[in-house]
């Protein structure tokens, strides 16, 4: 039966060649636009550390002065000051915890004639790389003892290892950062969480990953400055350890709900203690999980969400268009339907026949839509946005394309098919 419907549908579509092309083209354009924007949306709202992100939390407190404070209308700050960061870190209240800040270091190649260049440098404490699940190609990370002693050691990214050491095992060799020598203790495999969750300004954080990872104290000893500093009073940014400035993020690993609740109590207790001492004036705290933190930081730019909304509006117009055209076609064929019904076809059979026709339009629209989506993504990859280079169609988006195409075509086919199957055969036959 299905084969017969297919034959009928193909013949009917072939007979109205221009109209069929029009329907398929419109549907394909809508689907192409949708899949393009959906791919970007998925890329931007993805999980940077699949499997680990649910256990990572980001404590936030508010050291701002009392002036202008309205309880309940204020949010805790995005970063921590050195003093609070060290207090929270050394309390060891979570199973693992790490401080992290992002800076930019001057890297001087040893080879004669090569110019120095700047690379993104992560200053962190020992647990950061293991917590983030960074894979090592050679060597390993540094230890808590290195943190405490301010040892001049570094972990470098694979691309930097290729650039400086031609990809050889460089553990034990030295690199020059901001004019100081650091001993390489580890070389990472590919490590580039998307988005780079541990830095503020998330919008600019997609790409190759960071070049070097240094122990926090050693990095500060060579005056590596963080990219993002916020101060609540005029402060000496040359001495960030004592200044009234926030520039560090703390990530804590909390394996279950009890641990999260426990940490929340600890954080509130810490703030109450600081208020009692007169250091703090605001009692708001927050402990978002990694994915919640990304959402509050608006990791998906508004423009991208607007584009996705626009694309769906466009698809809706295309589907309406297809409904109209399919309906027009089926009304024109009332007589054919009348004859088929008179010869014994059931309503279900007529309905099936028209749905098969819609499905063919959908599949054709999907194939063409895929082509349009590839074109759209090619266009996006040539945009200047930092995430642009990562916009690619993967297998699941490939499947989603066809699902969207088929579903929209079948929805579009429902009304015409229903109209077709309620056609009364007698008047149609009488007419001729």
């Amino acid at each position, binding site marked *: 039966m299905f084969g017969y419907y297919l034959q009928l549908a193909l013949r009917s579509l072939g007979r109205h060649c221009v109209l069929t092309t029009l329907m398929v083209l419109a549907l394909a354009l809508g689907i192409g636009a949708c899949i393009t924007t959906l791919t970007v949306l998925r890329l931007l709202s993805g999980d940077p550390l699949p499997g680990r992100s649910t256990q990572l939390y980001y404590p936030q407190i508010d050291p701002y002065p009392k002036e202008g404070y309205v309880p309940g209308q204020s949010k805790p700050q995005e970063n921590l000051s050195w003093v609070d960061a060290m207090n929270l870190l050394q309390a060891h209240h979570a199973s693992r915890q790490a401080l992290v800040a992002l800076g930019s270091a001057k890297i001087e190649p040893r080879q004669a004639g090569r*110019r120095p260049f700047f690379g993104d440098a992560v200053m962190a404490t020992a647990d950061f790389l293991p917590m983030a699940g960074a894979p090592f190609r050679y060597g390993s990370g540094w230890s808590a003892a290195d943190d405490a002693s301010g040892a001049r050691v570094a972990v470098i990214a694979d691309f930097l290892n290729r650039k400086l050491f031609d990809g050889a095992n460089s553990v034990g060799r030295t690199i020059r950062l901001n004019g100081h020598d650091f001993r390489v203790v580890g070389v990472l495999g590919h490590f580039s969480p998307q988005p780079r969750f541990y830095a503020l300004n998330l919008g600019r954080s997609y790409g190759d990953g960071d070049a070097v990872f240094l122990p926090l104290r050693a990095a500060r000893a060579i005056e590596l400055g963080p990219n993002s500093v916020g101060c609540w009073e*005029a402060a*000496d940014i040359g001495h960030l350890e004592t200044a009234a400035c926030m520039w560090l993020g703390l990530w804590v690993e909390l394996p279950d709900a009890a641990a999260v609740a426990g940490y929340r109590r600890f954080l509130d207790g810490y703030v109450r203690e600081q208020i009692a001492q007169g250091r703090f004036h605001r009692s708001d705290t927050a402990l978002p999980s990694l994915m919640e933190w990304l959402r509050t930081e608006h990791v998906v730019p508004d423009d991208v969400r607007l584009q996705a909304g626009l694309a769906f509006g466009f698809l809706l117009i295309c589907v309406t268009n297809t409904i109209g055209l399919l309906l027009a076609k089926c009304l024109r064929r009332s007589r054919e339907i009348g004859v088929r019904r008179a010869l014994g076809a059931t309503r279900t059979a007529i309905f099936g026949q028209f749905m098969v026709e819609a499905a063919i339009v959908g599949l054709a629209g999907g194939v063409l839509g895929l082509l349009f989506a590839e074109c759209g993504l090619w266009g996006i990859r040539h945009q200047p946005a930092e995430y642009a280079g990562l916009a690619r169609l993967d297998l699941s988006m490939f499947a989603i394309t066809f699902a969207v195409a088929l579903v929209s075509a079948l929805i579009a086919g429902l009304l015409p098919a229903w109209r077709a199957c309620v056609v009364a055969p007698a008047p149609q036959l009488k007419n001729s």
Partner: protein
Amino acid sequence: MEIGPILASLRKHRIPALLIVLEIALACAVLCNAVFMVGGRMNEIHLPNAIDEQGISVVTLNGFDPERAASEIPRNLAALRGIAGVQAAAVLNTMPLSDNGWNGNLSPKQGTEATDHSSLNINLYLMGEGGDKALGLRLQQGRMFDGEDYANGTLGDSFLPETHVVIVSRSLARRLWPQAPALGQKLYGDKFWYQVVGVVDDVLRPNKAGSGLPGMYDTAFFPMRPGDTLNYYVLRSTPADRERVARQAEDVLGKLDPGAVAEGKSFVDIRGKYFSGAQSMVWMLALVCVVMLAVTAFGIVGLTSFWVAQRRRQIGIRRAVGARRGHILSYFRTENFLLSGAGVGLGMVLAFGINLYLMQHYEMDRMPWYYLPVGAITLWLLGQLAVYGPAHRAAAVPPVEATRSG
């Protein structure tokens, strides 16, 4: 033209008519909002900036020894002024649209905290001697800094400069002192005070910080003697020379300090890069609008064509009983006019609703009312254009068609 028969016929084809109305309504709603967004982005992209944008090239120098900056800056500037075609050169701490802000909270009232409402988040341009000429600042009132100002300006142990003079952008002067003239007024921040000695034409901030787009001109200039915070070398030349000057200046600075990293660009490129996101959004929106209008138009063409084909016999009968071609033409045009009218009516309501939703969930302004009728007229015209072909085919149906049994 009587619309009675048209309405009667539409009532018989309720669902296709409804679909056309719906399609036009959706297209109208999306079009209004998309065009409004394009307008907003275009305004942003074309924000005026009262410096010599066409003639400026900028070299950033990083990784130099901060201890030696004070002695190296004069040497570097002298070398840069030696490049052919350079008319002026100076150093600043940052540049407009460089996305590298230097923000401070300053207030026209003494003794207010940084978090107070009367203080404004202002971008501070710390400028070495000759900066006004290199940038091409346009003085509106008062005076530029003199040699003494430059010699006395230093950076304290905080973000704020230690000096007592400031030059503000005109918009900032109006925002801070709406009633009184700005010249001679004082700005306060932390333990410092600054007296306004000059007002210049509006210069943009490095990025959208502080109060967003309305605060893009919250900029103030401070004189500064050479020091390690000044690492933006600004060179002014003729527009034709700027790319060459940027490249040569990068080479010159790279050779003078082999340990540092110099990067040269024309200001036009800096501006282009800053607005590239908005620019690509404009293209994307425009593309979707055009394709959407095309799809809508083809939808109308397709549906009307079928209608015409279905009614060949009726048209023939009308022609046989005396209707002229013009009558048939105007029948289909009027029909489309009515459908489009209903569509844009619904569409304007929908457009308004979408705008309200976007205002709630995104950084979006209220759409001015005139976008609605403009969008409506566009779709009305599009409908008339789309119906032209099918209506002509209908008018060409010969009266003899009436005698054919269909």
